[in-house]
């Protein structure tokens, strides 16, 4: 029986081979995408682990008492200081270190600790140092390059890292340098409290990727199922003929299973081949904001077994289930009549999902707790329920919509299309269900992300000045014993002497008192003479020397309706002279926005006032992107997913339409014989796909916005912002692509319903 099944599968003529090829291609794309998703999840984990050594010295990365210490502890500690620096908006991890003895721990990627005046750079960093004028970058880093940091210390191939050897006494005097005995092996996602400013928590990405996998796999499964159904009628006729000569239903079932297993195994093998061939290319896709090392994009043994065994088994089961829907008797194939119309109870899961998110938004105290994993799972539960709910409720909604249309249809095309939809809404909806999920996930993600980005941008989002205005913050911590109170004339001359620099403002903290233990809210002041040179900081009233300012450089939650540059600050009682004794909270340098001016000013600031904590001087737009960095990675992921899902959903749409046409070739061709114009049949086919498509897009976009609304209400108490133009562009592109796919199947109609069909069938 197995041999017969195999022979039927591969020697069944052109039609059988076409069918086999189509299923194999569908399975190949499906398993290739599944392998990519699994490998990306692994790559996120690997990338996360590569960030571990950058957590060195941070309290959140220290092993807690009672847990096993990971990493070796050295007898000679190491002075360690990590900063985030920027070049042209790209983050640079800068590590300054100094050994206290020969046993000091050495970070990964370098053979030995650099001595004072030496540094190691990552490959991309070394390229930059070589290609960019020293005044713009190189002058920030003392010493000479003695080697390249190896791949095992880089989170991504393009990561910018520099490890600088410093004089022991010099570094030990820095307030934020720490004495460490071990190099951290705690990844950012394991880091608990205070963590390094350069890592990202991969758990969130992996969690999101699991939703992505579901959103991605569903259209693929629909595609595979659609492909298996193609020319099912012919195959079933063949089975009926075999039943006539004595084959038992069990034998038929076995043959059908073997047939689909052959196609699936071929497909899975192709899928692995596809993945292996495209792996270097996939690694370059910035799933978040960094590409992966090709070697990180790897599969575990479990992953391989899951795909290699799981998919053929799933396909075999699907083939059996499909065959159970038809009754193959020796006298022919009878379909188990029209499927029962879907019932309103199909709405239950969808409503339950919405109700759960509503509960989380308005009644649960979970959003107020700080258990982010629990919160994420609670929301994902709701999102998954809505995804399943949309797929379950889709046929019912399609049926209701098409019944409504059928009652009002005046033309035959509308009537036939609406009746067919109302008759078998399951099959009509199946064709568009992939798109529905893609639209839901994208709408939900983009709705949330757009709002959070707008929310974080605060009032500083004035694009006129944000990329050309540098901010150098000073530490206000009480241990900072040597506060800067004024910008020296030399420093001012140097800064203003840089081509493209327009002005410098020092913002003083009028309340700073290193001896006080009382934490009073700060009052910031600046002179109007300086403010006039830095337009991003706003204005002074006429005739005033000093003003109180409340600068907001983004990332802060301030509901100011106007950008900072348009604010006129209130006058202060303080005099210009009084300011010169007050600690400077920040220095603002205004440039013309050119890269050379910004980077040269940044380099000068870094030399004049070496970074003491956190980040080097940053532009307002860099500050903004820092606060939205994580969320922008999610946005990037959402875009990648949508762009991958749409073509797959499109393929499954095309296969479904072709399958539907093949099923109705006889009635359609007879209608054509009786003089029904081809354009009417085209209209029928277009309508029966376009109607569920439009209904589904509206419903799933609505559900996506609702889910986003509840999430934002619960997490941020924030109202949903209207999605950006990019969102509408993506949805419109998706719809246009779908219509193009529908249009591309129409020539098939002319071929399938020609007079010869009616004659030969």
């Amino acid at each position: 029986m197995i041999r017969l099944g195999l022979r039927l599968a591969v020697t069944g003529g052109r039609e059988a081979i076409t069918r086999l090829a189509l299923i194999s291609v569908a399975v190949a794309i499906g398993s290739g995408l599944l392998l990519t998703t699994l490998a990306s999840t692994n790559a996120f984990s690997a990338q996360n682990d590569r960030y571990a050594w950058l957590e060195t010295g941070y309290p959140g990365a220290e092993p807690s008492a009672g847990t096993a210490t990971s990493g070796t502890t050295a007898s000679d500690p190491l002075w360690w200081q990590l900063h985030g620096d920027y070049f042209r908006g790209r983050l640079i991890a800068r590590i300054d270190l100094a050994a206290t003895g020969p046993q000091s721990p050495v970070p990964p990627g370098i053979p030995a600790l650099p001595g004072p005046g030496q540094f190691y750079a990552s490959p991309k960093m070394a390229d930059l140092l070589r290609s960019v004028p020293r005044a713009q970058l190189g002058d920030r880093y003392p010493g000479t390059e003695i080697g390249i940091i190896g791949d095992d210390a880089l989170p991504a191939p393009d990561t910018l890292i520099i490890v600088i050897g410093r004089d022991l006494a010099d570094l030990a005097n820095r307030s934020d340098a720490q004495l460490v005995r071990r190099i951290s092996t705690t990844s950012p996602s394991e880091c608990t409290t205070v963590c390094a400013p350069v890592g990202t928590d991969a758990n969130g990405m992996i969690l999101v990727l699991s939703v992505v996998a579901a959103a991605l796999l569903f259209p693929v499964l629909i595609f595979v199922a659609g492909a298996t159904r193609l020319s099912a009628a012919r195959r079933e006729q063949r089975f009926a003929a075999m039943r006539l000569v004595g084959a038992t239903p069990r034998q038929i079932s076995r043959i059908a299973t073997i047939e689909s297993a052959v196609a699936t195994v071929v497909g899975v093998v192709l899928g692995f081949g596809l993945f292996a061939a495209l792996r270097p290319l996939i690694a370059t896709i910035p799933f978040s904001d960094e590409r992966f090392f090709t070697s990180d994009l790897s599969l575990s043994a479990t992953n391989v077994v899951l795909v290699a065994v799981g998919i053929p088994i799933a396909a075999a089961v699907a083939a059996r289930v499909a065959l159970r829907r038809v009754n193959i008797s020796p006298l022919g194939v009878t379909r188990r009549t029209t499927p029962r119309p879907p019932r309103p109870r199909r709405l239950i899961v969808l409503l339950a999902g919405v109700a759960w998110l509503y509960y989380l938004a308005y009644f649960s105290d979970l959003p107020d707790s700080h258990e982010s994993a629990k919160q994420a799972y609670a929301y994902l539960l709701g999102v998954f329920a809505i995804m399943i709910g949309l797929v379950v409720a889709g046929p019912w909604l399609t049926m209701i919509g098409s019944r409504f249309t059928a009652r009002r249809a005046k033309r035959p095309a509308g009537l036939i299309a609406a009746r067919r939809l109302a008759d078998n809404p399951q099959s009509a909806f199946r064709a568009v269900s992939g798109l529905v999920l893609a639209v839901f996930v994208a709408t939900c993600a983009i709705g949330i992300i757009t709002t959070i980005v707008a929310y974080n941008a605060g009032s500083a989002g004035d694009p006129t000045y944000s990329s050309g205005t540098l901010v150098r913050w000073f530490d206000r911590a009480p241990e900072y014993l040597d506060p800067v109170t004024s910008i020296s004339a030399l420093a001012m001359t140097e800064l203003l002497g840089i081509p493209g620099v327009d002005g410098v403002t020092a913002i003083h903290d009028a309340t700073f008192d290193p001896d006080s233990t009382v934490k009073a809210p700060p009052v910031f002041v600046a002179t109007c003479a300086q403010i006039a040179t830095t337009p991003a900081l706003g204005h002074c009233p006429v005739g005033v020397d000093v003003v109180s300012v409340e600068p907001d450089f983004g990332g802060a939650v301030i509901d100011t309706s106007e950008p900072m540059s348009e604010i006129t600050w209130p006058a202060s009682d303080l005099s210009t002279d009084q300011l010169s004794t007050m600690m400077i909270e920040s220095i603002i340098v205004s440039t013309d926005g050119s890269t050379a001016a910004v980077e040269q000013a940044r380099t000068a600031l870094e030399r004049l006032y070496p970074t003491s904590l956190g980040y080097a001087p940053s532009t307002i737009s860099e500050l903004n992107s820092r606060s939205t960095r994580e969320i922008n990675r999610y946005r990037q992921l959402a875009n990648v997913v949508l762009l991958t899902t749409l073509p797959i959903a499109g393929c499954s749409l095309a296969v479904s339409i072709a399958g539907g046409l093949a099923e109705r070739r006889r009635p359609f061709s007879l209608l054509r014989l009786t003089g029904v114009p081809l354009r009417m049949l085209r209209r029928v086919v277009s309508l029966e796909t376009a109607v569920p498509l439009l209904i589904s897009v509206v419903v799933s976009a609505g559900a996506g916005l609702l889910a986003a609304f509840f999430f934002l209400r619960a997490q941020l108490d924030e109202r949903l912002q209207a999605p950006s133009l990019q969102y509408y562009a993506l949805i419109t592109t998706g719809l246009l692509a779908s219509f193009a796919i529908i249009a591309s199947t129409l020539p098939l109609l002319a071929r399938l319903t020609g007079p010869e069909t009616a004659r030969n069938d």
Partner: protein
Amino acid sequence: MSATVETAATPPILEARHLHLSFGETPALRGASVSIKAGELLAIMGPSGSGKSTLLHCLAGILVPDSGEVHFDGARVDTMRESARSELRRRRFGFVFQFGQLVPELTAEENIALPLLLNGVGRADALGQARGWFDRLDLGGLERRRSGELSGGQAQRVALARGLVAMPDVVFADEPTGSLDSLAGEQVMELLVGAARDQGATVVLVTHEPRIAAYADREIIVRDGKVAALVGATG
């Protein structure tokens, strides 16, 4: 015996002259000619593969012959564009096939109303006219049934009504009883003949069953792509 069968003094409504048509290397028609008068019921008989259905398809403007002419009501059908032939079939001809001609998604009454809807008749009016056929065809109560819920005989009667509802000048019936038992077949034929006579429609009937051909005014036999014999004649 002449390959051409000429009838009568009154001008024919439909006429085929020396039709030749091959499918690839296989000739289907080899000089077939026939002429049919208005209101006449012609049966085309012949063994399987003789070319009788091909002849009907050429007469109906479904197929275009490689050579020869087809005339309907004074117009050349074989030289018409496909769109004109489609319109001719839709407005002047009616069709009944062996099986599978009903649109499965539509109810029986909507299937009958379809040609009217296609000709631009309003939905209510078209459905009203369609319903008028149910009692006449002994199908009362089946108006809302789908084709899958009808017996073979019932479905064929619905198809018959659909072929006649737009008051065609010519009804082409290709083995209309081929998939029915003898009783149901006779019922369909009686209805076809009765309705066609009432409407004054010409009927071109392809069958290989003498019992069914007996309903016709005149029979011709097609053999090897030629009209080989005339059986009986109208006066």
